[in-house]
């Protein structure tokens, strides 16, 4: 019973987070999705080290307890949590820059902007005529465009 509740909780967090990452229309919420999924994965790791009727793996009144839970997954979760918060702060820094440059954090808007910028930078003609077969793109100008960056 307890196992079912905990595993369902952990996996649900994982799935809700991943779905949020993939489906959100706002970049900030996508990041929140990642944080939720990480929480789920961390819970799974702790569950992997749990043992019935055991104490925390810490010296108690002169000796280690007879039965202890597994300390290894706990150490791994410590590492994972700290890694997670570092990445999270970096992501916020990136969001700040994105916001400065595109003025928006809506997924569709920034994505469109991104494709325009990339095409511009790489010297691809903007799709002025939709009839031009895409395979016949001006690869040459791509080469030169890249070369001109220096």
């Amino acid at each position: 019973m307890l196992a079912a509740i905990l595993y369902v909780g952990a996996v649900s967090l994982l799935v809700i987070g991943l779905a949020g990452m993939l489906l959100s229309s706002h970049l900030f919420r996508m990041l929140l999705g990642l944080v939720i999924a990480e929480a789920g994965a961390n819970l799974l790791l702790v569950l992997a080290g749990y043992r019935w009727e055991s104490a925390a793996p810490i010296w108690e009144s002169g000796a280690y307890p007879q039965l202890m839970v597994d300390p290894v997954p706990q150490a791994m979760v410590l590492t994972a949590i700290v890694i997670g918060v570092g990445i999270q702060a970096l992501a916020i820094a990136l969001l700040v820059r994105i916001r400065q440059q595109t003025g928006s954090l809506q997924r569709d808007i920034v994505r469109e902007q991104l494709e325009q910028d990339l095409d511009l930078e790489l010297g691809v003609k903007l799709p002025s005529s939709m009839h031009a077969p895409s395979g016949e793109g001006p690869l040459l100008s791509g080469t030169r465009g890249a070369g001109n960056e220096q």
Partner: protein
Amino acid sequence: MSNSLALVIALPLLAAFLLQPLAQQLGVGREQRSVAIQLYAQLTIAVTLWITLMLGNGVEQQPLSVMMGGFSAPMGINLYLDRLSLLLLVATQLALLLLWPADATPRIHALMLLLSASSMGLALSGDLFNLYVFYELLAVATFGLVAANSSRSAPLISFRYLLISGLGSVLALSGIALIYSHTGSLNLADISATLQHGDAELPLAAFILILLGIGVKAELFAVNGWVPEVYAIISPRLSALLAGVVSKLAVVVIVRVLLMLFPHPEAAQVLLVLGILGVISGELAAWRAQDLRRMLAYSSIGQLGMIFIAFSLSLEFGMLMGLLLSLHHMVVKPGLFMLTAGKSKRWHMALFVLFALSLVGVPPLPGFWVKLSLLTGLVEAGGALNQLALIVFLGATVIEASYLFRVLQNTLPNPPAVDEGHLTVGWNGLVGVLLGGVLVVTTLSVDPVLEQLKQISSQAGDRNLLISSVVTPSAEQQMVVERDK
């Protein structure tokens, strides 16, 4: 002595930590400072190369397993150096030396050092969670390097890369949780020994999770959305490094996990299917691409798909095939990326033709032998999926030829003017020439190279050798190492 293998990872980290404080102390001009820092960083890598070569001497007979902290095998973390990881390590170190970014800020140099440390860790580590940590370090360093680009879209591309990579690491972490609750261990060799008898469902599921996780860096189908964007904006040197070397490190980690932990046909099938999908999607997108950089990026997805197909074949044969394809791609792709830098000149075109011919598989270049042997391998393997892979593989070769020659076709009628002022070759061009040279030398000596690679792959595919060299000697080592208690 063998304990100093840890320095290969520790020295770049140490250098990275100290780089910024030291840089502030330098009282020289901005330019000299930049040169000094680059020298400092490259010297560090050169020292690790030296250590690697020193320790790599006896690896032909017996792989080296070094325990961190002097603990015994499943309890502590071990580094594992066999001929395969030696080859990768040396290739990585050479690539880092050749492709180190010129005149960059101290922060970039620090990130490059972290990238170096993490890739060496990925090549060496024999512990599942430790691999995850190095994998994350590699990812975070790459985010920074991508975002540092002057391109306007750099932060957004980096952010998207971060999300995909984060998704991958969450999946990998759950896979590790699954493995741990099943085997109670994180050491690859130890898990391998444990899993030899037992049911296959849980390990298979864990393998899929870890595969998707680490597959992000290996440009595996379904988690490779970052590839075209990232390679479009980062410098050719960094593209060459990431596409050429780092992706292969991720591939080798996947293969290690596959061969050592889950040598089940189902796991190989998953790899095969994802490989086929990667080839199809990558090559088609490359064919439609409108600029050279993204074309190369997409084609790299396709070629990594082929590498996955190769590794999914039977153990001894697939290992060799995958290794051949990987090494070939490791030379050709950086070469092509390096040629996208700088003004195109006539000899650039000549080199481009050489690389393109080998990539497509025209005899007598190495690419031909590699593709031919994969072809025969797929025919011999039989089975519906393998035949599908065969068809896809042939189709992909045709498409590859078509888009690569389109580049030439567009270029040859109006060749770039010879600019007199630019007689200097430049470092990027020099690296391109060097890689071309490697290709030519390999063409001239196919047989001995193949012989070496056969030995490497047979050693890498030997599970029992791995288990015996990690789990047993470390117990003895623990007896030898005296701890003052």
